């Protein structure tokens, strides 16, 4: 399925996507931390890094990639992820779950969404 319209809202840092089956909004931060690039995902399950401190990330430009997706150039220099329309559709439909998982992972690793800040974990919410 292909979207008909992709609007990058720079001020609210949201990507509004119009699909034949509905409209969705994804935050730039959400897109950035779920980049399908090897840098984030790793190669064949090996490597990959959890991005953090991307709360204020913005998008400089975006270009079509063939007939099947877009490449997004973020203002932190990251541009190696090609977001296929299938990937975007999946991200949009599983947004809440994925976001929850990301925040939990950040917490586990003592990382923060805000750039250049440190989290001092005084206690773990899981009680361990």
């Amino acid at each position, binding site marked *: 399925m*292909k*979207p*008909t*319209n*992709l*609007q*990058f*809202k*720079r*001020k*609210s840092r949201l990507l509004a996507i119009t699909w034949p089956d509905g409209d969705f909004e994804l935050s730039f931060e959400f897109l950035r931390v779920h980049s399908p690039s090897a840098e984030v995902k790793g190669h064949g399950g090996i490597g990959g890094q959890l991005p953090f401190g991307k709360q204020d990330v913005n*998008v400089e*430009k*975006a*270009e*079509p*990639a*063939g*007939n*099947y997706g*877009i*490449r997004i150039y973020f203002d932190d220099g990251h541009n190696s992820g*090609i977001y296929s*329309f299938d990937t975007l559709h999946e991200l949009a439909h599983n947004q809440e779950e994925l976001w929850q998982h990301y925040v939990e992972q950040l917490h586990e690793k003592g990382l923060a969404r805000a750039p250049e800040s440190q989290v001092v974990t005084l206690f773990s919410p899981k009680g361990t």
Partner: protein
Amino acid sequence: MSTKTLQGVKHLVAVASGKGGVGKSTVTANLAAALTRQGKRVGILDADIYGPSQAMMLGIKAGTRPEIIGEKQMKPLTAQGIQMNSMALLATDDTPMVWRGPMASGALQQLLFSTVWDDVDILLIDMPPGTGDIHLTLTQAAPLDGAVVVTTPQDIALIDARKGIEMFKKVSVPILGLVENMAYYQCPSCGNKDAIFGEGAGKRLAEVASAPLLAQIPLNRQVQERADQGEPIAFDDSLLNDVYGQAAAQLINQLAGEPEQTASISFSDD
């Protein structure tokens, strides 16, 4: 790598096969000839960096080079009304391109974007066999209208053709049609048709791809002779010309009915 539009080209069509040796380049040259006969302005880009053959098939003399425009652009050669550019025009016949993937991809992009095509209706891209670097580059960098997949009837060719079809599906390039090459042999003395490599394969593959079977092309000595002489057989009135003529007409129809819906990308400050 971003997708650029290709100046001077209306429709961009890849001619591909999974397996090598199925006659993809011969089909490309003949399809180009048939399209030209139907009044279309046709170009061929030979993307087979490692084994370019279009120059020979269109009768371009060895050693002919494309004319250079300015510093970075090339004028395509015109042979029998067909515009073309190929790696073969930039190297000699006996120079192998011993290159790794990124070099080959770079060469393809230069051929594609640095050639000044002159108002071409349909640019056919003669792809190398397989699903490798060149295919990735092309599907990511070029605004393809679709692909024509060539196969022969043997199972071993069909398996590879299926992979090719899946590759195009993955990157949302529509399959415009299938061509079954070497579909049968017709005895020149008695006219008896013999499906040497088996029957019905093209039809089955067309069903898998949900695309029309554009042509079933017989094995014919003249096809090979004329390709080697640099005069594709589809330029003449013959039994074969009819087959290629019908394929060309169907392809034109397919392109007319394929308005590429592109997602529009915009930026706003809310």
